């Protein structure tokens, strides 16, 4: 009965809306699409230009007006960068990848353990500890830089990848993000597992962790991105040429040959985008969901 009334009322609403429709909603709609398309073009244009210029004859890379679509397919620019004698790109790629994979794996493990404890276990001081994690997200990197630098130096870890791996083994953001995921799971799951005599680690590992798969994927992408794109850390800790990570190498490379060979610099930057892009496309849905959950009330 009520649903019928509702249908009729909503029909009436639709009719009223149709009657009230003037040319203005179409103008508004048009403006919105214009904004959307303009911004999308502005966001993509620099990347398109980079991509197409990286495939151009190096001599043509300064050409104006700029072409945003490829005019040539010189894949050998990429080969030239990879095989360059002066700059060992495959090595930098490997360095970045190694650090990012270790940090990502470790964060997924340590953050999910802590997040499960904060979301689902009861122990004295839990909320105070979690508050500490939340508050630490406000602390700017610059505050900890100097003491961490001194610490790394006194441990004789300067110019090693450990200097980047150790501080990245866990992170407050990851704990916060995964806690949001654990909170969405029904508590009855734990209760029934407990009745079946499962220990907490077993509950965590066998029951809860598989259910927060999307959260782990999102955290994985975020952490990988953060580590892969990290510039400040390597700038502080890495000195020797063979230890450099990709972003630092690209910026250095630009200094070496930027004005001479733009196409090669751009090919180098393009290559640095491929892994993150692949990662993102594989886990896009989870990344979006992850961003969504961090925006909800804690």
């Amino acid at each position, binding site marked *: 009965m009520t649903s019928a009334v509702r249908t009729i009322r909503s029909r009436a609403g639709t009719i009223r809306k149709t009657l009230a429709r003037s040319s203005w909603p179409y103008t508004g709609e048009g403006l919105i699409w214009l904004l959307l398309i303009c911004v999308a073009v502005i*966001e993509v244009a620099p990347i398109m230009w980079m991509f197409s210029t990286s495939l151009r004859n190096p001599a043509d890379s300064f050409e104006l007006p700029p072409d945003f679509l490829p005019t040539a397919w010189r894949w050998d620019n990429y080969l030239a960068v990879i095989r360059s004698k002066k700059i060992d790109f495959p090595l930098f790629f490997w360095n970045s990848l190694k650090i990012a994979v270790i940090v990502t794996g470790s964060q997924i493990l340590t953050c999910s353990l802590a997040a499960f*404890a904060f979301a689902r276990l009861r122990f004295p001081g839990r909320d105070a500890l979690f508050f500490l994690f939340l508050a630490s*997200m406000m602390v700017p990197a610059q505050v900890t830089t100097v003491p961490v630098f001194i610490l790394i130096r006194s441990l004789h870890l300067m110019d090693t990848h450990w200097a980047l791996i150790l501080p990245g083994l*866990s992170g407050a953001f990851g704990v916060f993000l995964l806690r949001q995921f654990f909170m969405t799971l029904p*508590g009855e799951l734990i209760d029934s597992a407990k009745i079946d005599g499962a220990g907490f680690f077993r509950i965590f590992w066998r029951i809860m962790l598989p259910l927060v798969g999307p959260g782990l994927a999102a955290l994985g992408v975020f952490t990988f991105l953060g580590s892969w794109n990290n510039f400040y850390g390597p700038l502080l800790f890495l000195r020797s040429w063979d230890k450099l990570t*990709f972003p630092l190498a690209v910026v250095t490379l630009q200094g070496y040959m930027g004005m001479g060979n733009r196409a090669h610099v751009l090919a180098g930057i393009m290559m640095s985008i491929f892994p993150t892009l692949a990662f*993102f496309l594989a886990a896009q849905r989870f990344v979006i969901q992850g961003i969504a959950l961090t*925006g909800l009330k804690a």
Partner: protein
Amino acid sequence: MAETTVDRVKRAMPAARPLAGGLRRAWIQEMISGYLFALPAVSVLAVFLILPILASLALVFMDYDLLTPARWLGFDNITRLFADKRMMTTYWNSFRITIGATALNNILGLLLAMAVNRKMPRVLRYLLRTALFFPVLTTTASLAIVWQFILTQDRGIMNHLLQQIGLAPIPWLSSVRWSLRSVILYDVWKSCGYLMVLYLAGLQGIPEVLYEAAKIDGASRWQLSRYVTLPLITPTAFFAIVISLIGAFQIFDNAFVLTEGGPGDASRTIAMYIYEMAFKRYEMGYACAVSLTLLIILVTLTLLQIWAGRKWVHYE
């Protein structure tokens, strides 16, 4: 959080807890598990965050250049802060970047989210969302090089396009007037997609029923946005603004590569100034003093926002 049976019993008869041996054992087991689970994350936090902050508090009173042993200075580093004109300049720059980038990123992010969040073919929505989010995936430092190529004054792409539509070329990176704006522009290009996804999630969390109800009452499209969408997006907006502010105040890579802080100090951020003090001049104690002012400012700003948020954030 759902109450477990154990919790319910514990709450109902706290005095009986010592008697109920099984429950007590379960409770202790849960407690120990909790600490063990949190231990790895807590120890990383302790070593690389809490310990450093405490060390910073001590270093503020010292003169330390990494080579010679630290020397006790007393309050010299703190009094020095008050006369530091360059710190004030870089703070002012960071402040302007923060205001500009936070405002533009959030307004654009919300507008884009509202624009994408409408009926359209699935493929189109996917393409638009990916295109708008793409810059977020790229490396800030590397893409700054691309933006250098775009914004250079001579033979730069931006100026070429400006000239095509009859405008005068702009010294984007080399003038005091424009370099800071270029840093903001680059940041908005780089991160408005992230804000869009955040707002999009907020928009999709608004129950469809509310729109239906408002439509039945004859609300216009403008009224729907103003009286349904806007109040219900405020919790998302609050979170988005808080994290944008914290992030923008720490901008380093963008300006470090794009303008190198120049010309002069025109686009040098406070993060770059701290870096310079610590790792170019090796004045570790003073760098700590400056970084602690940044911490105090960020904490105050966040607390102020939480306080102000009570007035404008609409929780159901």
